[in-house]
Each structure stands twice: as C-alpha cells, then as structure tokens.
C-alpha cells in the first residue's frame, strides 16, 4: 500500500510538472518557430509570448480554454512519463504486459498532445511520431536489458560459472552471417543478372521468385536452424534486413523495400519456432 502511494505521488508530481512545463515549452517554441502574424494570437496572455498554438486557440474559441486543455493533456503525459520505471519492476510476462500497456498510454497521451493542441499541421504525421516514440522505448528497454545482463554476468563470475552467451547472442549469430550475405546479397545479384539475359521484360526471378519464395523460405529455414542451436537471437532478423537493404537501392528502388521484410519476418518467425522446438525437445548439452 505504501509502495502504491509512492507511485501515486510520482504520477501526481509528473502531472504537475507536465501541466506547468507544456505551456512553457510551447511558449519557447512558438517564439522561435511561428510566423509573426500567428504569434499575435496569444499576445493577450503576455507580451510577445504565447502559451498555445494559434490553430488551437482558434479551434477552442479562446486562449484560456485552449491553455487549460493543453495543460491537462501535458499533465496527463507528464504523469504517464513519471511512472515509466513501473514496468521494469518485475520481469517475464509482467514486464511485457506492463511495458505494452505503458507504451499505449504514452502513445495515446502524446498523440493527443500533438493533435488536440495542434502541434502538427497534418494528423497523418502522428504515426511517424509514435514510431519515433516506439524507437525510444526500444532503446530504453535495450539499455535496461544490458544493465540486467551485466548483473547476471557478475553473478555468474561470483558463482564461478561459465560466462554464458554474449549480449543479444551476437557472437552466436556470427556463423550464420555468410549465409545471410549469400541469400540477401549474392542471390539477388545473380538472379537480376539472369533476368537480364531473358528476352521477356518481366524480371520473374528477381521480382517474383526471389521476394515471394526464396527470401521467405531461406530466412525461415535458417532462423529455425539458429533457434534450435542457440535459442532466440534477436540480431539475426535485423542482420537479414540490413544485409538486403543495399540491394533495394542497387538493383531495384524504394518500392522493393518490402523485400527486406520478406526475409526478416520469416527469419524472426523461424528463429522463435526453432527456440520453441529446442525448449520442447531439449538435447543433451543444451542445458
């Protein structure tokens, strides 16, 4: 109960800070970014300084009401950010569920700030900002994970155990890199060359067979193999994606960007499936 009160206090402090800092941030940004005629809308509040965007003031009919709504939304965002360490208090399923719930709350409050306060001209840009927020989440999670990894390494050392796998199993993934280079770089080059030797204009091999058959099958099978041997290796799908990327620009154009996903997603699925198989049918020496 005492602990819950601690979180409530943090949320309240975050709300107050968010509510106070949001108008200040808008004030600072508006004086730098908005054109002079737009800045005049909020000038009744303080000479030359503006607490809400002109578009928001216009939408709400008055600067006062707009500022109140903006402060409430800023406070909500601040409260959510203030309890951002809560998901990391536990591990396993709780960590995943709480992280997802917290991300949803953050994304919603952030999107509301962006759109209701008219910080963006076009709502179509909101998913882009949410994607950036997701990236930030992934980076924070990675930072926390590295911290946990270091702790476990210390415990292993103190217990006199083997050092264990490398961070994110990068070293264990390395033996599969030549195969990835072969499939994601060598194969497209060869197939593109073969396509050019045909009399027909349609690049059947590099445009159809490669992305819809060869890349998914190769990614999936290699992922299963890696998963069975080493468990989940999150860098493997990423390596497939990154290795194919130069081919998109070298052989095709941006419309072929989906090829990267056609190899990375099956690689991830295969890797997880291989890991599940490894768990279900443990071999001697896997323990």
């Amino acid at each position, binding site marked *: 109960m005492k602990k819950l009160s601690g979180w409530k206090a943090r949320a309240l402090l975050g709300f107050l800070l968010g509510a106070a800092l949001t108008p200040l941030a808008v004030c600072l940004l508006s004086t730098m970014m908005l054109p002079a005629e737009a800045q005049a809308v909020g000038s009744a509040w303080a000479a030359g300084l503006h607490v809400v965007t002109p578009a928001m003031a216009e939408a709400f009919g008055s600067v006062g009401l707009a500022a109140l709504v903006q402060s409430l939304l800023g406070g909500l965002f601040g409260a959510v950010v203030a309890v951002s360490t809560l998901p990391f208090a536990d*591990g*396993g399923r709780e*960590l995943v569920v709480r992280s997802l719930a917290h991300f949803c709350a953050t994304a919603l409050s952030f999107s509301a700030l962006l759109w209701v306060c008219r910080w963006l001209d076009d709502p179509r840009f909101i998913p882009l900002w949410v994607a950036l927020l997701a990236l930030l989440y992934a980076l924070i999670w990675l930072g*926390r994970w590295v911290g*946990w990894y270091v702790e*476990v390494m*210390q*415990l292993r050392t*103190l*217990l006199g155990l083997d050092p264990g796998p490398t961070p994110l199993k990068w070293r264990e993934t390395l033996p599969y890199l030549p195969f990835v280079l072969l499939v994601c770089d060598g194969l497209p080059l060869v197939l593109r060359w073969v396509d050019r030797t045909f009399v027909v204009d349609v690049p059947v091999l590099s445009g159809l067979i490669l992305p819809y058959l060869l890349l998914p099958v190769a990614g999936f099978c290699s992922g299963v193999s890696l998963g069975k041997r080493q468990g989940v290796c999150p860098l493997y799908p990423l390596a497939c994606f990154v290795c194919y990327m130069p081919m998109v620009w070298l052989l095709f154009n941006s419309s072929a960007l989906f090829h990267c996903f056609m190899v990375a997603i099956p690689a991830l699925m295969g890797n997880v499936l291989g890991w599940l198989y490894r768990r279900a049918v443990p071999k001697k020496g896997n323990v």
Partner: protein
Amino acid sequence: MKVKMEIEPGRQEPEIIILAGAESAELDRLVQELSGLALDPIPVWRGDQTRRLPQGDFLRFFADGKGVSAQTAEAVYAVRLRLYELEERLDPRRFVRISNSEIVNLEMVTALDLSLTGTIRMTLNGTVTVYVSRRYVKKIKETLNLGRRERT
C-alpha cells in the same frame, strides 16, 4: 578468556553471548566458528516419517501455497518451519533468498540465464529450474561478495 555456562530450565535453544571490551579479528573468527557449529540439520517430513537432513543436501526451500517444502536431489519433503525461520537457521554463506517464496543453496547452482524479458533463470544441480526475482539480485551479490560462500 573466561568461559561460563548457565543452565536456564525451560530454555528451548542454547544462546551464546560474547562479552568483550572491543571488536577484534579473533572475536569475529570465533563468532563465525560458533555460528558454523550451530548449523543444525533440518528436520523434514515425508508422510508420517521424519528425518533430519544435513543442510548441504538441500537444493532449495520453497513456499508452495500449502506450506514450505524442501527439495533435495532425490525427493521433495515438507518442512514445518516458515521461510524466515529457515533463513535464520540456514548457513548464510551457502543459502540465500532469491524471491519472496524461495531460498536456494548457492553451492548447487549450475547455470544462470537471462531471458529477453529480463527473467533470471537459475538451474540447480543441472535439473531443477527456479526464477530469481530482480529485487533480490543485490542481496545475492552482497552475499557472494562478502566471501561468505566457500566454494569447493
């Protein structure tokens, strides 16, 4: 050094108190040795049968909703003590609490793994899998860092 013994009728457990003018390394060693001598076997039950097993035989002690159980390499037994009472009786150099419901024998740890979701999985004796709460990691490190563990 004077040694004095007093008999108190009705006392359940012997208690040793050392009176000294100041702390010293010799006194610390004496305390450690006396503490080691005081490590009794743990009484366990299986059905109606009771046994007293040496502490080194145990892999872990855990609360399972019905009570506290003790696991050795061969079997699981019932223990009529609470976890905090066990903590007081067990060798602090060897046993450490890893979660609200579990105490493990560090001598029996054969593997320690971290999952992507931050779960710390500990394997005891190569067969028994338990999960370490991250809230207890600091305490485990302190226990190991203090050098109270005597690995053989």
